[in-house]
């Protein structure tokens, strides 16, 4: 009798669970899943729009053939976007981890520092980034000020770190990487706000008892980080990496997205644009899958 009652309670709990996620079921059924299915269908069609609806014209894999064989810009844009992504992910994730660990330590002005690091999440988004790009007149005036009149060398192009490395006779490619990272630090800071937020939250989830036990055993800070902090954070690091991938795609200064949008909305090549998007997403999917396969060996779930 008691068991029966328990079961019915469980059933009730199940039903209530469905009720709570009803909005999600609605969203998936009405918008998300149809959109995804349509997207896949569109890639095999030529789409034309008139007042009363849109009509599909089945053309097989022509869109894909066009992308890889005839379109001169597609492959360049795609490889650019993907290499950008591949270099962006480790830089952003490592930087966020570093900053999150820093901000988790106790020091004076910690709250102020956390607040400031959070500012880009709210402020460096959407139209503000876009305007920052388009009003490059202001920046061009700024850089023209930096030109050294005596030598004519554009000082803004020669950042400090680059000249130091040059004088130390470092390899050119190495200088390129290091100086590129140093020059790009502003954009890295801008795009790692949420990641810092997620990691900081996760850092505080780690039970203090783990650290205490390790300290009693005589571990130093380095060991504490690699044996406790890093494994405990690994699931969130994956989330951060994935978030970075998506974020790079949705920032307004993504060249590939701009190209696809211009095809779709100014030239009305909906089918072709969808196919390009689909290829891009497949590439990202493959990247995520490889990344996930590699990383899952190192991810530690504390459950």
């Amino acid at each position, binding site marked *: 009798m008691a068991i029966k009652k328990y079961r019915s309670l469980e059933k009730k709990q199940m039903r209530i669970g469905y009720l709570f996620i009803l909005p*999600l079921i609605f969203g998936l059924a009405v918008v998300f899943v149809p959109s995804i299915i349509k997207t896949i269908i569109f890639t095999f069609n030529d789409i034309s729009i008139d007042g009363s609806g849109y009509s599909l014209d089945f053309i097989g894999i022509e869109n894909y053939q066009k992308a890889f064989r005839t379109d001169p810009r597609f492959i360049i844009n795609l490889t650019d976007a993907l290499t950008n992504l591949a270099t962006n992910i480790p830089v952003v994730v490592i930087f966020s981890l570093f900053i999150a660990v820093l901000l988790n330590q106790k020091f004076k002005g910690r709250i102020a520092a956390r607040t400031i*690091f959070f500012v880009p999440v709210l402020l460096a988004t959407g139209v503000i980034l876009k305007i920052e790009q388009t009003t490059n007149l202001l920046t061009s005036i700024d850089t023209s000020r930096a030109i050294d009149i005596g030598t004519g060398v554009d000082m803004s192009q020669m950042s400090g770190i680059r000249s130091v490395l040059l004088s130390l006779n470092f390899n050119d490619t190495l200088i390129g990487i290091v100086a590129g990272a140093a020059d790009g630090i502003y954009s890295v800071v801008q795009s790692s706000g949420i990641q810092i937020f997620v990691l900081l939250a996760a850092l505080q989830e780690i039970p203090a008892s783990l650290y205490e036990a390790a300290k009693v055993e005589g571990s130093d800070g380095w060991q504490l980080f690699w044996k406790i902090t890093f494994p405990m954070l690994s699931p969130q690091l994956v989330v951060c990496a994935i978030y970075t991938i998506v974020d790079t795609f949705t920032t307004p200064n993504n060249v590939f997205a701009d190209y696809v*949008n211009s095809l779709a909305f100014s030239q009305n090549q909906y089918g072709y644009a969808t196919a390009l998007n689909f290829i891009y997403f497949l590439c990202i999917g493959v990247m995520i899958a490889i990344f996930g396969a590699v990383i899952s060996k190192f991810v530690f779930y504390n459950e």
Partner: protein
Amino acid sequence: MSLIKKKKSFKTIGLRIWEIVRFVIIFGLAFLILKPFVNKILLAFMNPDDLLDPMVMLIPKHFSVYYWRVAWQGMELSRTLLTSTVLSIAVSLIQMISSALIGYGLGRFKFRGRNFFYAMVIIIMLIPPQAYSIAQYLGFRFFGIGPVTINTIDSLIPVFIMAIGGIGMKQGLYIYLFVVFFKGLPKDLENAAYIDGAGAFRTFFSVIMPNAVSIIVTVMLFSFAWQWTDLSYPKLYFTSLKVIPTVIGEIYVRVGLTPDTIGSSIAQNAACMLLLLPLLVLFIFGQKFISQSISRTGQAN
């Protein structure tokens, strides 16, 4: 004895050095984050002569609020400001409520398909909306069943529907945050309410939600800020309907001034700063909740 002392003093020296390094890093990055904003605020007060004057680096010589006024007028024209405000407030409210419901359902109840729906949330977060935006656009352009369709483009309906369905802008992230938060909340809260005879929804609204204020404020703040500055959805779904992000690019011409690159870029800059102003105010008020939600998500694990 002296050896131990020596070792200890080494340790404190190391600690001091680390403190200095840490200060330099944090201060430097904070400077890097804040400087462009200070720069831009000052820029918006300049007039074109100041911009071309090589002697003026930061502080404008001739303070002028002319471009602030231009920016404000451009934003007010044809109810742009009102549309933007209504849209952002409504979206942040709807997204918060639907994400909280979904997050509570996924985080607290065991039911068949739970893992499937949780995976879907992650997939929603994963697939960039641009990847299927064209199909989605057409779906809302001819919204309905079978031959009976209505055109919902150029209204707020598409954005609202997506927010309700948990697939609005960055909503995967909000749901994820809620799931993590609700998983960490102690079970005793609900049990007490159940024993008192409250139903699940009553419990949710009168017991759970009041305990989730910090995460609610955080999500609403994110959602408001991102909707407020978002360009991608308005560009896709609105044509004659204007929100502030879509008019900033043309704000100078919009108030009837003749096109002029320097003037219009100062005006755009001033408009951006005006756009940021409410976000800054909200952020200062919400900061406490954000840091609370950082330290509270999953505390009970």
